[in-house]
């Protein structure tokens, strides 16, 4: 931009049309300046001020010349309009020099070079038109300059340019000052003569400079759109630069690779677009993202975290489902024996009458019981089908593998979550500011989305406000501690009480179990379940009430609540398990007798057969599979128990939502028209979404699935269905009948707490399953392991029969305790080591965080000059006899200087310099010039203030800090 202007000026003066030229350049400069000012007013004004002041400070032309080495723009001595025009280039270079001080000099030099270079073309054209009158003078001048240039021939471009620049400067000054025509011509000729001399050395140095120039222009073209200018100005600039490049590129043999460049640009654009589309596609592939976002925007991230958890759970269960169905169920259904072929796949005769009744099917009896849903259906054939699929082995491996997979996934997710910013540790230096300025997504063009976005922004602000209020709360620590201890005591008491109650009830139920069924009332039969559900109903609200004593942040309160209810439910779970084990043991006993009976019957048959037929060829007994005597098959019974439990859990959950939330909301909404008090604001109100209850429900349900999946492969499928429906159902329910929490709070970034609970449940549910696999004998007449002593025998069998012998020996070695114990020891050591390493990292992390915080505070304090928190400074100030204005200003002065020492660029760039920063800019100029005090000392050093402050000693004997820069004006 500035280059063009100067170009114009030179042309004009060469042709001798100074008046028009000056007018044109003036108007152009003005308009440009206007645009500039609009865009970058703060910076510009600040710099303008500094430039003006600088000009004022500079006393004579000589000193100005000496100041060329400074980072200062070269000022022109003549005041007025001309100054304004010329400031445009200087401003720009100045701004750039702020960006990179080291380059400041070259940057400043650039426009000057341009001037020199640009004179060339006009010179060649216009020199002929030069008036002959000035010929003599011109040659004279030219000779002088020529001489000098010969002296400086050896790469002393700077000096030469200085000369030229000076001459040109003068020329411009004179021209714009509207001096007499003759003199004007004189100077112009002098400048053109200097160009003459430049022409002499055009060969190499000029050539390279021209190349640089073209390069710079090209750079300008490519970065033009990054400049904060008005479009018109950009267009002008672009046109200029393009013309320049076009003009000189041919001469310099440039311009190749243009196509390549265009191609590159096109490709990058395509690539960006592709990436964007791909991102969109990826986002579109995430299921329920919009649903969850919608919930989040209205109910906050804490409620959304439940749904995220649900979705995660769904994903995991889908994989489990894939394993179980792909490797167990489908092979059995496709390749195994069909229904009705063998006893275990047939409904017994006495059950057949009712086998299709809904009530029976609903209890998973009848056809359900003898279907692929349960363990008992699977055959113990070693291989099935054409593929020689080893079903029993696959069954065992899938059962164990699903635990392995779940463990891996849970732990990996936990690790990933803890990597992602940890728990609640936000690096939020700018929480509110960022929320304020970056939360609106400018891409939103859909009104529905916009509504959601508004809601979500409001919610997120509310969340942050709650956090902030929690931080600001100053509290009576002792009272709070006391209350918290009290609350924990109360909760422990109620937990202990409920534990005892469960124990008591279970004991009683065991005595009832020994009694005759008919003597027991309905209540006595269902006592355990009744007490359990009562506890589950009463305890959570009780805990919540007690938790109010503690006044934790809602997020932490939620964790406590979760932990407490979890403890309560654990009792529930384990009672159920113990009851189940009792049942299994009873079944095992019964099975033993039946097994003996069948063996006895078989022997009878054989003996009878051989006795009757007198032949050794025994034909097997041919009975209808439905009539075969069979054992109780405890595995299927366990599977059915879990199935029933899951189904009843689903029922309870959905009915609670339907009645507890939906009907309540309906009643509140519509009865409100004819009720004595305000139902919506008053007592019943709408329900809040119960995060803790829902999360725990989900976790315990998953525990049931893990425990039961081994005995009922169909359970996984059922669970997938359940999660799927509950996603839709709960999303709908929460949006229609719930209200946001009173204090919407932010969920912790990683929902590792949920994951931790899940891991615990996974472990707890793994124990009984592994125990049964390892110790209990499988049923003799049902399931894939029938006929074996232990379930894991199937692995040993495979190793023996299918794998090469050396692998078998390898396994025996690996199973050697001598090898296992060192391995375990090694692992423990590794865990210990890694743990200590991670602790050290955490420590270092915290230290660094502290340091950063401190640095930030320090910086802030340094900038908050007036009310500095530096206690020493304050004390010193208090020690002063009087707060004399001098000391105050001196202090400010000192601070300003220290500030400048640190971040000069910031200060000078500060757009606010107009209003408050005037003094700051002043100080800057002066302090920069301090090495070379150029101003005339106009008065003797004034009386110093008491030099209690370090800043005072730095004070220049020039008087008050503020106005010092203006002194020379007087």
């Amino acid at each position, binding site marked *: 931009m500035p280059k063009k202007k100067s170009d114009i000026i030179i042309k004009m003066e060469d042709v001798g049309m100074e008046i028009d030229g000056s007018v044109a350049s003036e108007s152009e400069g003005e308009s440009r300046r206007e645009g500039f000012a609009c865009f970058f*007013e703060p910076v510009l004004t600040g710099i303008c001020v500094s430039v003006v002041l600088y000009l004022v400070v500079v006393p004579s032309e000589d000193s100005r010349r000496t100041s060329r080495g400074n980072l200062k723009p070269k000022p022109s001595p003549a005041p007025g309009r001309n100054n304004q025009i010329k400031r445009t280039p200087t401003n720009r270079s100045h701004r750039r020099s702020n960006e990179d001080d080291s380059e400041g000099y070259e940057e400043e030099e650039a426009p000057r070079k341009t001037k020199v270079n640009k004179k060339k073309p006009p010179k060649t054209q216009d020199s002929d038109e030069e008036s002959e009158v000035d010929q003599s003078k011109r040659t004279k001048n030219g000779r002088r300059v020529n001489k000098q240039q010969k002296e400086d021939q050896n790469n002393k471009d700077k000096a030469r340019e200085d000369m030229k620049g000076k001459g040109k400067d003068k020329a411009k000054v004179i021209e714009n000052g509207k001096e007499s025509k003759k003199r004007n011509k004189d100077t112009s000729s002098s400048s053109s003569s200097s160009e003459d001399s430049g022409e002499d050395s055009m060969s190499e140095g000029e050539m390279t400079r021209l190349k640089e120039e073209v390069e710079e222009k090209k750079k300008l073209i490519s970065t033009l759109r990054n400049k904060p200018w008005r479009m018109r100005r950009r*267009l002008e600039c672009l046109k200029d630069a393009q013309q320049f490049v076009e003009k000189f590129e041919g001469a310099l043999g440039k311009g190749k690779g243009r196509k390549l460049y265009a191609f590159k640009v096109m490709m990058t654009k395509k690539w960006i677009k592709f990436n964007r589309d791909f991102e969109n596609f990826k986002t579109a592939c995430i299921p329920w993202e919009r649903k969850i976002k919608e919930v989040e925007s209205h109910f906050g991230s804490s409620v959304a975290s439940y749904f995220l958890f649900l979705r995660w759970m769904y994903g995991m269960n889908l994989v489990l489902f894939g394993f179980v169905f792909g490797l167990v169920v489908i092979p059995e259904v496709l390749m195994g024996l069909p229904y009705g072929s063998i006893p275990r796949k047939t409904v017994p005769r006495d059950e057949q009458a009712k086998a299709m009744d809904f009530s029976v099917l609903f209890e998973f009896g009848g056809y359900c019981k003898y279907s692929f849903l349960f363990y008992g259906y699977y055959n113990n054939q070693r291989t099935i089908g054409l593929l020689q699929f080893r079903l029993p082995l696959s069954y065992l491996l899938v059962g164990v593998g699903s635990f392995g997979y779940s463990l891996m996934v849970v732990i990996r997710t936990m690790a990933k979550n803890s990597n992602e910013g940890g728990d609640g540790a936000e690096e939020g230096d700018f929480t509110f500011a960022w929320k304020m300025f970056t939360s609106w997504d*400018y891409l939103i063009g859909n009104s529905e989305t916009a509504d959601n976005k508004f809601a979500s922004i*409001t919610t997120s*602000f509310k969340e942050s*406000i709650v956090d902030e209020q929690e931080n600001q709360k100053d509290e009576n620590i002792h009272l709070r501690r006391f209350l918290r201890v009290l609350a924990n005591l109360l909760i422990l008491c109620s937990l202990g009480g409920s534990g005892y109650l469960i124990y008591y009830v279970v004991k009683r139920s065991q005595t009832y179990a020994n009694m005759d069924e008919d003597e027991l009332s309905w209540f006595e039969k269902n006592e355990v379940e009744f007490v359990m559900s009562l506890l589950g109903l009463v305890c959570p609200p009780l805990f919540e009430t007690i938790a109010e004593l503690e006044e934790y942040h809602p997020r932490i309160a939620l964790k406590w609540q979760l932990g407490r209810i979890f403890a309560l439910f654990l009792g529930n779970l384990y009672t159920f398990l113990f009851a189940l084990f009792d049942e299994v043991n009873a079944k095992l006993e019964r099975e033993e007798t039946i097994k003996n009976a069948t063996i006895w019957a078989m022997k009878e048959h054989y003996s009878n057969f051989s006795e009757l037929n007198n032949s050794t060829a025994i034909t097997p007994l041919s009975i209808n599979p439905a009539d075969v005597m069979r054992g109780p098959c405890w595995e299927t019974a366990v599977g059915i128990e879990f199935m029933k439990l899951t189904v009843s859990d689903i029922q309870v959950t959905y009915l609670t939502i339907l009645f507890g939330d939906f009907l309540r909301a309906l009643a509140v909404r519509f009865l409100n028209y004819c009720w004595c008090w305000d139902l919506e604001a008053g007592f019943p109100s709408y329900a809040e979404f119960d995060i803790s209850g829902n999360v725990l429900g989900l976790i315990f349900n998953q525990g049931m699935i893990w425990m039961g999946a081994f005995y009922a492969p169909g359970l996984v499928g059922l669970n997938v269905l359940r999660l799927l429906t509950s996603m839709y159902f709960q999303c709908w329910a929460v949006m229609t009948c719930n209200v946001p929490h009173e204090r919407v709070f932010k969920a912790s970034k990683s929902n590792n707490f949920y994951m931790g609970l899940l891991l615990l449940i996974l472990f707890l549910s793994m124990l009984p399953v592994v125990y049964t696999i390892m110790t209990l004998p499988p049923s003799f007449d049902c399931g894939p392991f029938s006929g074996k002593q232990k379930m894991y025998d199937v692995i040993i069998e495979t190793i023996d029969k299918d794998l090469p012998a050396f692998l078998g020996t390898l396994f025996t070695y690996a199973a050697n305790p001598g090898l296992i114990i060192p391995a375990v020891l090694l692992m423990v050591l590794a865990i210990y080591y890694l743990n200590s390493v991670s602790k050290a990292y955490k420590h270092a992390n915290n230290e660094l965080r502290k340091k950063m915080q401190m640095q930030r505070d320090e910086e802030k304090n340094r900038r908050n000059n007036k009310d500095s928190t530096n206690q020493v400074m304050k004390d010193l100030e208090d020690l002063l006899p009087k707060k004399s204005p001098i000391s105050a200003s001196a202090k400010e002065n000192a601070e300003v200087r220290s500030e400048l020492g640190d971040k000069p660029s910031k200060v000078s760039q500060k757009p606010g310099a107009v209003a408050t920063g005037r003094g700051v800019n002043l100080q800057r100029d002066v302090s920069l010039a301090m090495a070379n005090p150029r101003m005339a000392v106009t008065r003797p050093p004034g009386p110093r203030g008491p030099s209690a402050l370090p800043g005072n000693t730095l004070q220049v004997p020039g008087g008050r800090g503020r106005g010092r820069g203006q002194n020379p004006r007087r």
Partner: protein
Amino acid sequence: MDYTNNPDVKLPLALIINMPELKENPFRNRIVESFSEDGLGNISFNDFVDMFSVLSETAPRELKAIYAFKIYDFNTDNFICKEDLEKTLNKLTREELTPEEVNLVCEKAIEEADMDGDNKLCFTDFENMISRAPDFLSTFHIRI
């Protein structure tokens, strides 16, 4: 509209803010105003191109920051002061926060970002803050 003969056509604010890209934006008035040369929201073609060039995906962060500052500076005094913040906040939340909450948020925002202690945000403060914001680039752009 005869654009060929009279290229200096300006569209009024009311027309521009109804384009689908801006229709839902709570700051649409400010956007148009700060890109218009007269500051009143009358947009010429150049201004229009300007606007979408700055709001395009490829515009650099510094440029975006400058214009974001202009947009959020409601009273165009080159500072984002508390009034501006309140206006921003009320537009963002559709005035659903209580005055105390608004006050709290504005004070916190200033406290966080104000580095020179003048209780308002100058451009340096703003740039310093916005340059570290993770979402700024992804949210401050419009595709047309």
